[in-house]
């Protein structure tokens, strides 16, 4: 029941995209909508297809999740050095994933890549929040859509980190019991993502209103 709720909670993202009249050129909104559709499909259909090659399914899941979350923070972090660091570390992570998927035997889930993914995303979020709170002087952090995305991801990854790390060592009934806890965290994440979509729309509407192009006429010397 909870899993079903989780799967369908992913559909709220494209739904919010449509309700908020999101446009294709609004890249981040589109990314969240596509993220919702892809993960709905991954959870609803593709686990059946990938049943025989489960480790590829989990690796693909981790890869897509890491890519989506990282892209959000890569776009929002202004420090060039840190952006380069994200790109570099992501390449290393993807190479490790390829190595892992080909060499390691996966019992239930790819715990090590998930653990690394969680730690990396945590670092990006901490840096983003630190950077934002340092530089934002005239706006509250919770008026920025990325704050809600960060909180959602923190709850989701925080709530599932130890579960994914220890999942291969758990009894079947514990997997179900604690699995439900991660579903709750994931549903909360999706709801917070929906809030982020509306805040993004609101803030871009204000930005368009406030930042009308200021044209200075010709004041050259000749």
């Amino acid at each position, binding site marked *: 029941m909870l899993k079903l709720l989780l799967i369908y909670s992913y559909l709220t993202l494209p739904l919010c995209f449509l309700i908020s009249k999101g446009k294709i050129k609004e890249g981040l909104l589109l990314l969240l909508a596509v993220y919702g559709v892809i993960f709905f499909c991954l959870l609803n259909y593709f686990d059946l297809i990938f049943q025989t090659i489960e480790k590829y399914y989990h690796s693909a899941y981790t890869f897509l999740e890491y890519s989506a979350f990282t892209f959000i923070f890569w776009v929002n972090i202004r420090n060039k050095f840190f952006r380069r660091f994200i790109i570099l570390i992501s390449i290393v992570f993807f190479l490790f994933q390829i190595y892992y998927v080909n060499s390691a035997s996966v019992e239930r889930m790819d715990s090590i890549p998930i653990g690394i993914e969680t730690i990396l995303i945590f670092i990006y979020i*901490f840096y983003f*929040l630190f950077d934002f*709170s340092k530089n*934002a*002087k*005239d706006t*509250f*952090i*919770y008026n920025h859509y990325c*704050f809600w995305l960060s*909180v959602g991801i*923190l*709850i989701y*990854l*925080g*709530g*599932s*980190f*130890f*579960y994914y790390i*220890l999942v291969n*060592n*758990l*009894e079947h009934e*514990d997997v179900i019991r*604690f699995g439900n*806890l991660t579903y709750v*965290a994931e549903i909360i994440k999706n709801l917070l993502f929906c809030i982020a979509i509306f805040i993004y729309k609101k803030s871009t509407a204000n930005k368009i209103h406030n930042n009308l192009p200021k*044209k*200075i*006429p*010709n*004041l*050259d*010397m000749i």
Partner: protein
Amino acid sequence: MFFLQANTSTTTALFLGTIGMLVLTIGLVVFIIMHQRRVQRFQQKLQQLEIDQQKMMLNASIKMQEEERQRLAADLHDDAGPLLATARLYLNENLVNQDKVNQLQSIFQARQIIDDTIQLIRNISHDLMPPTLKNFGLESAINDLFQKISGSGTVNASQRFHDYKDRLKPEKELLVFRIVQELINNILKHSNSSFIHLTQNVHADKFYLRIHHDGRGIVQSDFEKLNKSNIGLGLKNIGSRIRLLQGEILFEKDISQTYYKVTIEVPKDDPYSS
């Protein structure tokens, strides 16, 4: 037994770890929000400082006005007063008892002194409100000013008005002229430049002036720093005049890094109709 114990400790670690992570997450979010509030309070303090600075500028402006009045009073008292008193001496009651030659000489002297006084009062009046500005507008007044500067031979000053068919209101023109005068004075005093060029244009409901020069100049951060310090009374006056005009001023270095530019943006008003 060992397996059961190991399994129990794994689930405990999982449970405590998850709780710990969630507490950490909530703690972090609360900390960020609290930190933001602190930043906001700091911002409010900064705004208060800004208000204090505006008060300081207003005081500087009042002080400047008072100094101007004192100078005016001194000019009238020290120069015009003695001249008129001397003229009065020449035109005393005994003049009718004097011979014709002395009478003519006294009248001539008195007339000379009165002419000097007229010239003196005219100079004082021109200092207060340049006649060219009053009669012919900002373009002519700036042209006059620049011709005088170019006449000295050390600095080449030129100006170009692209679109000034509709004059600003006289009080606005005077404020803009005073800002230009102050900027030009600063350039002549501190920049050691060889040329000054002024351009004017309008766009939508805004009037723009830009001054280029090739000497040592300042950028916006310097202007703001000087505005906050106790020195730079002239710059403070520029700031208060700009605020009075509800305009903006921008000090910057040209993209080629060769020139300094000062751009003034002032809202336009109804065409001058008086």
